[in-house]
């Protein structure tokens, strides 16, 4: 039993020693057998017949026990001074355990045993008092081994060895008890008493100093002559046997009245009175010292002998004497002895009888113990002996622990009972109290009991944890330094254990730090390495400690360290740190064998970016971590050093100073390299949080980017929708799918490298080195090289990794595999930031944020790793995590632009000029190109499209804009004409038409190409898509504005104009003659062309498919009017009432115009006629003296209503003519030079012939009015006005004739107007001029 245990004062310690050649397992087996005897009943002790030795022997029917404790070690020699003060600490008996099979070995065993005992114990030491050697016979042979003195042979064949061992032990105890008497005899002599009182910690007087007995023939030890006569027994001169028979009687009666001896009451006082007298007598004899110490020793021995009543008598006596003499330490020791007697009694009684209601049964013991503590505390050890302080501190601490153990045992046993006694006397602190384990086997989890369990014990016993801790706290103080290392460690260990069981983890950690300090100090100092100064420099938690001198550099010779026990020390370190909220195992050791075994992916939820509220005391945490690292360095355990450093960095870097971070990081890297050098097989897992912030695939350059197109596109050769309006073919104004279509999967090409940009984060103040960084992918195989890099301190660092996909298919980039130098690699997953994922993250963040700032749990329950245990509402829905995905398409051909016909990629054009560009493409890949398609873009497209999409334009403007986009593109390319195949290495020439469009500044030619007709296995389903690549060729366009048209006009032919038309020819214009056959059918188209450029241009207008044309030279800066006869035309009613069309298939936008229907009709009419006009008139220009030519657009011009009237041929035409009838009934026009002038003779009967022609397809009912002026010179028959014509069907005519005669010469104007009755406006009109000569 441990000397610190409560009952150690009443335990006879027996040392077990292995003797001779004995196997460890055998020794342990037999030792276990012997150790199972924890106590021996007094009745079993064989009595010694000799009287002087029978003093401590139990009475014949005594009830009680001798308690035994066994140890394997003797006390250190320095403790020899305590042999009389505290005999229970010493091994009073020695048992050698030997195993033997042959008889001749017996003698050697015997000699070995005696030398062993001699070596173990100091020369002249009082103990051991008895010895025995058990020789356990081996094998089955029952050879008689004979008997040797001092040896007991236990035959192997003996059945019940245990019983025999018990008997032997009882015998040994009997011997010890007998020897007690001898010791006391020596001390009872005056000289012995002097020795006893000579020093604070006296020793037994050596035999030589003892006065020789008077009769020399009696051996010294066996009889000290004066003692029986003047012993300190109360009844002087009475034999011991008498004493034994007499004393118990009054005591038993006393016990009935009160528990415990207490201060000696009346009967005993009377008994002790003679003692005083004997003391006086002693004094007169010459011994000046009191007998207090002697009485205390008697008490000690009686206590050991199990005779508690005697012991309490003697203790009380001793206390009474020592109280006066200020012998504090002996006094306290006697109090301690007295204090445990009730516990022994209660244990022996095996029943709990709590009689006293108001006083707890242990209060008396407690009081005595606290008195003892106080006495020890105030004791002043003699300063001359160095060990004095150590011993007093030792006893003080033990007294405190004894008191604490008492309280603790009662508390943990739920009160005064057998369980408490067993704890106090037998088990000690080694066993976790069953009341706190809830019946479960004491596992690691059950170690920390709940608050409720503690409180239950407190309520049951009335002892609070605070009280126990309060008592225990007294043990801790500077005096611990007085103690020797072993004692200090055991005291501190006990203290820590009690704190631990009480649930006071922080205090436990505090004490454990001291334990560690002791142990490591011993480890370091015992090393032969120049005083351990190597370790001193390693940095400690406590600053300002003197580190001692620094060692000089020398060649170190390293012996193989024993690593036994290192794990336990590290366990302690980790536990201490854990209590302070630092998880030193935040970073685990990776497996050594499976080196590249990247740990299971936990990167998604493992590391939180949410700033969790810190736990603990940063200053302390850092100090403790530094100490932990120093401990690991001192052991040395380099992987642990690295583990601790990195774990601390990971968990504490937020509160750590820069210097500390640097220091820890350097320590870790040094330790890792050292561990590696020494062949340590452990690897540290990756430590630095989630380093990967983002992963992006760098988009391929445009020339390499494949675009996915459906296969059906190939078959649809003719696109109805012009590509320019592609953006507007969508029938919906808002199409949500268009947005998502843009974010399709990224396409990469097989066997073409792509770049991935990884953004890494380093939250630390030092540069973080990564020995390997590679992509973690699933799907198709890729070829990539791991990257070693250094992430700069406290920054985000983008890194580009190049990878080469080896096959086509789906590629998923899950994250990164990161490896720190000397560590294991770890995979970090980075889910795609989809809305789902973001929502999930958001939920988690808000959960954390919600908990932040609220302290639902406090203290140790708030430690970071405790938190998840408390949370019961956990979001369990497992969201499917999406990763960055891309599609690898099969190999693609690659074209490049070899050359173009343009210089510097620029083209200069006149407005409306047509030109062409030649582009030579070269296939630089090994695959053929069998599809080629060109699309174009220019700077005018986007604004126009923008205007169209905005929808603010009127219908007419919309049409104009769309027309411009569709029919007048900058570039044109005839797909049919050019070759579309290019084998590997071949060249293709493309010719692109180019049109000078005003306001255009740049254009782009997009060349899409693909290899779509691949050979494939027949069994495969043909792919639904193919991939194109695009080459873009930007062209800088300059368009000069040189000719502009304005002043468009349409003029009618009048008869006068015809007459003078011939004169116009002499004006020198190059235009064609305006002569027309029938002026009714024609009109004159007129437009002004201005040349704003520096050179002259020749302008040509053609009408009606080159039936007529006019050409004019426009000099620079001048304006030329061009006239052109134009055949009038009429559009059908259905045609002109059509709404203005939109050229694209755009969704119809409700017209915003608020025109009336009439106005709208007019607008439509104008529109359609203008379209027809522009269709008929073609303008073109030519550079004079040059090759350049182009179109002249009239689209800027507007058509007005008067112009329309002229342009539009009428519905009904009245054709007038003057006829004369000659003999044959055929009328003949008279003297008409043309259709509009007649020359009838004077005074002759002629006929005015009016033909009303309905040119339209409708039928009209008409009335005709005619007038001839001057009318007084004309005679006619009938009426001229209101002539009913009747109904005229469409495309038919009706004739009407009036006979008349001109009665005067001169000119007559004849007009005829046809009108529909009831309508004011004339429907048709006719006019002729008549000249009468």
């Amino acid at each position, binding site marked *: 039993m441990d000397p610190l245990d409560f009952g150690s004062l009443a335990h006879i310690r027996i040392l077990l020693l292995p003797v001779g050649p004995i196997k460890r397992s055998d020794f342990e087996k037999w030792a276990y057998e012997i150790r199972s005897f924890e106590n021996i009943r007094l009745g079993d002790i064989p009595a010694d017949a000799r009287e002087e030795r029978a003093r401590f022997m139990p009475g014949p029917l005594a009830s009680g026990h001798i308690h035994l404790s066994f140890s394997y070690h003797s006390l250190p020699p320095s403790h020899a001074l305590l042999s009389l003060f505290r005999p229970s600490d010493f091994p009073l008996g020695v048992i050698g355990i030997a195993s033997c099979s042959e008889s001749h070995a017996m003698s050697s065993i015997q000699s070995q045993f005696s030398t062993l005992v001699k070596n173990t114990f100091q020369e002249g030491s009082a103990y051991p008092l008895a010895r025995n050697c058990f020789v356990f016979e081996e094998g089955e042979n029952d050879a008689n081994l004979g008997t040797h003195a001092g040896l007991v042979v236990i035959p192997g064949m003996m059945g019940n060895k245990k019983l025999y061992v018990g008997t032997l032990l009882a015998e040994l105890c009997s011997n010890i008890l007998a020897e007690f008497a001898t010791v006391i005899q020596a001390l009872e002599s005056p000289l012995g008493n002097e020795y006893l009182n000579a020093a604070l910690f006296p020793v037994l007087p050596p035999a030589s100093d003892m006065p020789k007995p008077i009769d020399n023939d009696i051996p010294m030890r066996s009889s000290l002559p004066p003692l029986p006569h003047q012993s300190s027994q109360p009844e002087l001169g009475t034999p011991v046997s008498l004493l034994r028979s007499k004393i118990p009687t009054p005591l038993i009666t006393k016990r009935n009245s009160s528990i415990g001896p207490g201060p000696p009451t009346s009967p005993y006082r009377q008994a002790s009175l003679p003692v005083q007298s004997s003391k006086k007598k002693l004094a007169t004899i010459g011994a000046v010292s009191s007998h207090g110490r002697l009485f205390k020793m008697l008490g000690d021995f009686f206590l050991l002998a199990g005779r508690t009543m005697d012991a309490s008598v003697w203790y009380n006596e001793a206390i009474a004497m020592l109280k006066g003499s200020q012998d504090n330490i002996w006094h306290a020791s006697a109090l301690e002895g007295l204090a445990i007697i009730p516990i022994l009694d209660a244990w022996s009684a095996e029943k709990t009888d709590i009689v006293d209601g108001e006083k707890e049964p242990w209060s008396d013991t407690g009081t005595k113990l606290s008195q003892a503590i106080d006495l020890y*505390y*105030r*004791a002043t*050890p003699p300063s001359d002996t160095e060990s004095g*302080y150590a011993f*007093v501190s030792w006893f003080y601490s033990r007294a405190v622990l004894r008191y604490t153990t008492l309280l603790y045992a009662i508390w943990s046993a739920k009160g005064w009972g057998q369980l408490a006694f067993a704890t106090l006397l037998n088990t000690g602190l080694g066993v976790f109290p069953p009341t706190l384990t809830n019946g479960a086997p004491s596992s690691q989890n059950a170690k920390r009991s709940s*608050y409720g369990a*503690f409180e239950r014990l407190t309520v049951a016993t009335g002892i609070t*944890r*605070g009280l126990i*801790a*309060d008592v225990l*706290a007294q043990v*801790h*103080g*500077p*005096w611990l*330094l*007085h103690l020797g290392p072993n004692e200090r460690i055991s005291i501190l260990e006990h203290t820590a254990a009690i704190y631990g069981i009480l*649930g*006071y*983890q*922080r*205090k436990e950690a*505090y004490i454990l*730090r001291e334990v*560690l*300090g*002791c142990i*490591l*100090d011993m480890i*370091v*100092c015992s090393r032969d390495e120049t005083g*351990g100064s190597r*370790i*001193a420099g*390693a940095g*400690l*938690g*406590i600053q*300002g*400690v*003197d*580190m*001692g001198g620094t060692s000089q550099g020398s060649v170190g010779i390293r012996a193989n360290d024993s690593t036994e026990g290192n794990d336990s020390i590290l366990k302690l370190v980790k536990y201490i740190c854990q209590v302070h909220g630092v998880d030193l195992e935040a970073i685990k050791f990776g497996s050594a064998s499976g080196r590249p075994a990247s740990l299971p992916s936990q990167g998604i939820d493992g590391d939180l970016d949410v700033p969790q*509220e*810190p*736990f*603990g*005391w*940063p*200053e*302390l945490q850092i100090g403790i971590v530094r100490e932990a690292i120093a401990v690991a360095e*001192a052991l040395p355990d380099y992987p642990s050093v690295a583990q601790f450093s990195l774990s601390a960095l990971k968990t504490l870097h937020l509160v750590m100073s820069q210097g500390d971070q640097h220091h820890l990081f350097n320590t870790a890297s040094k330790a890792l390299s050292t561990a590696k050098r020494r062949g340590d097989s452990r690897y540290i897992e990756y430590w630095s949080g989630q380093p990967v912030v983002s992963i992006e695939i760098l988009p391929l350059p445009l020339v390499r980017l494949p675009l996915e197109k459906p296969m059906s596109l190939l078959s649809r050769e003719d696109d109805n929708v012009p590509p320019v309006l592609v953006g507007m073919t969508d029938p919906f104004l808002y199409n949500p799918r268009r947005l998502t279509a843009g974010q399709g999967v990224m396409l990469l090409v097989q066997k073409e490298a792509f770049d991935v940009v990884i953004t890494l984060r380093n939250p630390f103040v030092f540069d973080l080195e990564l020995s390997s960084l590679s992509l973690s992918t699933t799907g198709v195989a890729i070829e990539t090289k791991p990257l070693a890099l250094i992430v700069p301190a406290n920054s985000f660092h983008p890194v580009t990794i190049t990878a080469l996909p080896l096959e086509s298919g789906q590629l998923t980039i899950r994250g990164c595999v990161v490896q720190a130098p000397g560590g294991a690699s770890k995979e970090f997953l980075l889910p795609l930031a989809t809305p789902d994922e973001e929502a999930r993250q958001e939920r988690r963040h808000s959960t954390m944020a919600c908990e*932040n*700032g609220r*302290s639902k*749990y406090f*203290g140790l329950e*708030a430690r970071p790793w405790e938190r998840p245990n408390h949370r019961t509402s956990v979001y369990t829905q497992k969201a499917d995590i999406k990763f960055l995905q891309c599609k690898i398409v099969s190999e693609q051909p690659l074209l490049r632009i070899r050359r173009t016909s343009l210089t510097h990629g620029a083209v200069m054009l006149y407005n409306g000029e047509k030109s062409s560009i030649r582009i030579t493409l070269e296939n630089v890949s090994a695959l053929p190109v069998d599809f080629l398609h060109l699309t174009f873009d220019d700077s005018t497209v986007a604004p126009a499209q923008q205007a169209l999409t905005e929808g603010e334009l009127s219908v007419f403007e919309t049409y104009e804009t769309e027309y411009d986009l569709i029919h007048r593109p900058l570039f044109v390319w005839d797909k049919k004409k050019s070759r579309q195949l290019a084998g590997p290495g071949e060249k293709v020439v493309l010719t692109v038409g180019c049109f000078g469009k005003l306001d255009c500044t740049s254009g782009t030619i997009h060349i899409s190409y693909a290899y779509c007709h691949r050979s494939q296995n027949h069994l495969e389903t043909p792919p639904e898509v193919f991939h194109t690549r695009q080459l873009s060729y930007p062209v800088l366009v300059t368009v000069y504005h040189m000719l502009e048209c304005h002043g468009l006009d349409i003029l009618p032919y009048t008869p006068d104009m015809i007459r003078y038309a011939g004169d116009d020819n002499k004006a020198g214009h190059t235009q064609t003659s305006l002569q027309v056959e029938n002026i009714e059918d024609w009109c004159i188209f007129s437009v002004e062309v201005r040349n704003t450029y520096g050179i002259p241009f020749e302008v040509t207008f053609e009408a009606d498919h080159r039936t007529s044309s006019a050409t004019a030279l426009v000099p620079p800066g001048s304006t030329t009017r061009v006239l052109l006869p134009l055949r009038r035309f009429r559009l059908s009613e259905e045609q002109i009432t059509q709404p203005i069309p939109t050229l694209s298939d755009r969704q119809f936008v409700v017209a915003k115009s608020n025109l009336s229907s009439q106005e709208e009709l007019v607008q439509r009419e104008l529109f359609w006629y203008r379209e027809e006009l522009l269709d008929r008139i073609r303008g073109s220009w030519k550079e004079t003296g040059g090759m350049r030519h182009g179109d002249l657009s009239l689209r800027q011009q507007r058509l007005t209503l008067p112009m329309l009237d002229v342009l539009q041929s009428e519905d009904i035409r009245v054709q007038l003519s003057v006829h004369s009838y000659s003999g044959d009934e055929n009328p003949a026009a008279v003297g008409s030079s043309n259709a509009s002038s007649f020359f009838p003779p004077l005074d002759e009967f002629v006929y005015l012939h009016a033909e009303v022609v309905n040119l339209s397809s409708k039928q009209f009912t008409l009335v005709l009015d005619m007038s001839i002026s001057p009318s007084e010179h004309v005679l006619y028959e009938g009426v001229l006005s209101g002539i009913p014509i009747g109904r005229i069907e469409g495309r038919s005519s009706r004739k009407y004739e009036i006979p008349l005669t001109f009665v005067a010469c001169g000119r007559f104007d004849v007009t005829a107007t046809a009108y529909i009755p009831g309508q004011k406006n004339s429907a048709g009109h006719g006019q002729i001029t008549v000249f009468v000569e």
Partner: protein
Amino acid sequence: MSHHLFLLSPSDTPLYELTHFSSRPVQNVSSPLASNLPSWSTSAFAGTLTALSGASSANQQYNPQGGSARIGGGKDRHVIQMVANASLDVIEDVMRKENLMYLKSVDKFNEWTVSAFVTPGNMKFVLLHEARNDEGIKSFFMDVWELYVKTMLNPFHTAHTPIRSAIFDARVRASAKKYL
């Protein structure tokens, strides 16, 4: 005589620390055992032990003129923090049973007596002192509490924000001067 005040958040993190030297004399009742201490090892770990067991401050008590300057800094500061932290065990135990905010002399360790004050928000004010001064400490704690509550009125101040306000510091010091 020195006092050490710590304001600890519910997660045991100190939000404010104060070391106050009082002019009042210390009644020295240390054990004779605490004297005449050996220096038994020069290793750094022994230094840890010396400091933690309170031996270094015990030594200082014997040469007060040189020692008082070192209190509050160096290894003593660490030990004092350790003691304050360790006393939380007892404080947490007691505060669950006692219905009081002011827990006077709740713990003793080495030469220090620990008094504590637990606010309703579970903030713990821990004061390490050497002499008994219950009423003064109570008044001091009430003052500190009031000041703390005023600080907490700041909406940006959570239960885990360290208190760096100079005004708070000055007022706590004034209060300490008054009562301790």
